[in-house]
């Protein structure tokens, strides 16, 4: 039989470019693959055992060879065997899987944080240094990266198959995942939770760089303003500083050093101030009243984008004193107090 050389070339190229096993590009990937191969082994042994039984009995006890069936009621010993052995195997798999799960979902404390905002149908990545990316993510090797993710609309899911990590990106709630990339290269980002028309187009690429290349990248691609700086600007422009000024008589609590502290609420609860708490308190202040303050803060639901909220949270995280808050406030007040031009009456 003759195969045309064109077709042959095509087939060779097609088959050699096709994938059969994902690359191992993170520190967690070999661990996940080890469990995978163990499970695969159980499956192969299990299927072989069952088919051996079926085919073996079929050959041995087929009617031509064994015309009269013998009565067997059952066997407690056999039944105990095939209850206990699978149970034991499944429990091993349970423990192994649980260890892996806790490893993937509990980020190390020194992880570098990157924010991910999912929306129909794109991924936005926000680096603390002010680098903004769409459908792309640049990370260095050898450093744990934590992703703090939120959706602006529906459920999405951030999947990095070559890193063996994935997590749902949920509307109205931060979720986190972490990884440490090992091999420079580009890898798929998929949205794996069905999210509407262009679900299949909600894809992107992670670019893993060596630490030196990553440093170059951060310098060349920054927007010039870190997330905290954008947050500071937003804080002033939305007038947050009017109440959260840190003055003794201020209508809102001081936010300096609040991140990471324990806060006493009016309803008697004690809460830990983290990203999620700050976000909720901005959007839904009446549910998160600090003890001693009146419920006068309006809701900001629908007025700040998820990116804006991230900026504010990043800003509050860095806020250690109220010095700059008050300075900004004084500047804006004196601007307002001073007449723009003589004779013009302030409206």
């Amino acid at each position, binding site marked *: 039989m003759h195969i045309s050389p064109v077709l042959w070339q095509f087939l060779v190229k097609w088959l050699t470019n096709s994938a059969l096993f994902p690359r191992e590009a993170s520190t967690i990937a070999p661990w996940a693959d080890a469990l995978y191969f163990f499970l695969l082994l159980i499956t192969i042994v299990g299927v072989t055992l069952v088919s051996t039984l079926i085919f073996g009995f079929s050959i041995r006890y087929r009617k031509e060879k064994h*015309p009269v069936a013998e009565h067997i009621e059952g066997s407690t010993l056999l039944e105990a065997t095939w209850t206990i052995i699978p149970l034991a195997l499944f429990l091993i798999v349970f423990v192994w899987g649980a260890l892996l799960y806790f490893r993937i979902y509990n980020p190390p404390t020194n992880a570098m944080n990157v924010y991910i905002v999912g929306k129909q149908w794109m991924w936005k990545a926000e680096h603390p240094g002010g680098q903004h990316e769409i459908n792309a993510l640049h990370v260095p090797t050898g450093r744990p990266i934590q992703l703090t993710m939120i959706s602006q609309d529906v459920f999405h899911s951030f999947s990095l*198959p070559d890193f063996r990590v994935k997590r749902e990106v949920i509307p109205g709630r931060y979720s986190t995942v972490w990884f440490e990339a090992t091999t420079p290269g580009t890898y798929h980002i998929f949205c794996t939770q069905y999210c509407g028309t262009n679900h299949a187009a909600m894809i992107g690429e992670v670019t893993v760089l060596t630490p030196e290349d990553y440093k170059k990248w951060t310098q060349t691609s920054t927007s010039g303003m870190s997330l905290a700086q954008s947050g500071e600007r937003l804080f002033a422009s939305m007038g947050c500083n009017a109440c959260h000024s840190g003055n003794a008589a201020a209508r809102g609590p001081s936010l300096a050093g609040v991140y990471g502290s324990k806060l006493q609420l009016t309803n008697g609860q004690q809460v830990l101030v983290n990203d999620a708490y700050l976000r909720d308190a901005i959007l839904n202040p009446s549910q998160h009243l600090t003890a001693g303050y009146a419920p006068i803060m309006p809701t900001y639901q629908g007025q700040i984008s998820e990116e804006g909220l991230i900026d504010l949270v990043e800003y509050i995280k860095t806020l250690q004193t109220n010095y700059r808050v008050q300075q900004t406030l004084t500047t804006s007040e004196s601007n307002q107090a001073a007449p723009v031009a003589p004779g013009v009456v302030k409206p």
Partner: protein
Amino acid sequence: MSTTSSTILNLPDQKTATIPKMNYITKEDGLWSWLTTGDHKRIAMLYLISITFFFFIGGIFAGLIRLELLTPQADLVASDTYNKLFSMHGIVMVFLFLVPSVPATIGNFLIPIMIGAKDLAFPKINLLSWYLYVFGAIFILAAMIWGGVDTGWTFTTPLSTHYLNTNVVPAALGVFIAGFSSIFTGLNFIVTIHRMRAPGMTWFKMPLFVWSNYAASILMVLGTPVLAITLTLVALERTIHIGVFDPTLGGDPLLFQHLFWFYSHPAVYIMILPGMGVISEVMSTFSRKRVFGYTAVAFSSVAIAVFGFFVWAHHMFIMGVSNYSALVFSLLTMLVAVPSAIKVFNWAFTMQKGSITFETPMLYSFAFIGLFTIGGLTGVFLGSLGMDIHLTETYFIVAHFHYVMVGGMLMAFMAGIHFWWPKLVGRMYPESLSKLAAVTSFIGFNLTFMPQFILGYLGMPRRYHSYPAEYQVLNVLSTAGATVLGVGFVLPLIYFAWSLKYGEIAGNNPWQATGLEWQIQSPPLTENFTETPIVTQEAYDYEWLANKTQHEVTTVG
């Protein structure tokens, strides 16, 4: 017939058998008599026709999906159309085919006969449940004709409530109504099995098919109302924005996931348990032996039903449930895998020291056991927390549940339909052609779904209209397999229709099986039994059958 003889002496000759003049089909004529019938056998046939219709509708959608995925680019249909195809494939196959498949057809026909009753406890409610099914199906069909629905079969919020302009409410309403059909069927089975067993038919003399349908009925009655509530909330959220699931109104989007999977995980067992019942009957009959460890198999059905209610959150391991609750749900998932393993080994050992023949139902049963074993073990991958992170929402999970639902449930349904076809219509299907169909669908099935496991581990997400080019080879294999599988399913449709007129006449008991249904004429009388049977024998007592046959022949002869 090629089977029979040898263990049973002096067998009445099947060749001389005729179709009895009086039976449930000939009792009354005309469409109206069928549409107003209270006879469980006629209602079963109505169901059989309806679900077969929807199986092929869902199958066409599946075919179009596979055709689109032949190439990496989105080129056959538009993205919205593709999304509608997989949504409607799921909705039709799950709610209009798999859930009613075995219970509403084979179960409806046989459960009363197997326990020696004249009918189900509530014949009119039985008919009502078919009408509800049809009514729900009409809503779903209407949703399709008006332009389809693209929520996925899971109706996930807030996508379904706020972000889509398709026919979400009609489709949800259709599923809601069809849900009541399954609640009524379950209720009917439970009452019938409790109250209407023939004298002497104790719980542990019942065929295992009855046990497994009983377990599935409990799930239907307790689980389906939760689905109804969930879909109602989705409809209310969509129309009047009540804010139960919407985070901007103070709702919790994860609540939907909890409610939906509280039904939809047990629904998996609603689908598979009756199929397991079929396998028990078939394995015993063609091995000519009692099912190995009858009690263990019976109780494992009940154990699956009970545990099945406490594993729903394993669909949500990556969704930000607390790590510790994930731990509990993973452990329970591992426990629910054990009764399934027990069943598989019990079926295999039923063959030990039997006298085995290989008719079509037996081949389908072998396919079931093999494919269900793979489906079950790959489920353990997904139940294992850390592994689930990588595998969930990919083609791995698609392959896994198709191994359970198609490889398991559909193969069991085919086994059951072939096994009881002589009883249903009084005629045999063509044996060699049906063996060909069984082998074809087994090969086609594996070719379709085995590559999807590999695709899943590579990370290819489910519900993707287009995909990276390096996944093409495996997708082409999968589509090729789907074509073979399609042939395997169209063949039976043709030869079953043919056999209605030209099939060999079956006689009462072509398989020499022990169930009460085989001791009456085929097709049965409307009243099933001329006199109420008194049960003294155990289930699957082949010696009793041999004695009885011998005795009959001597008295008659």
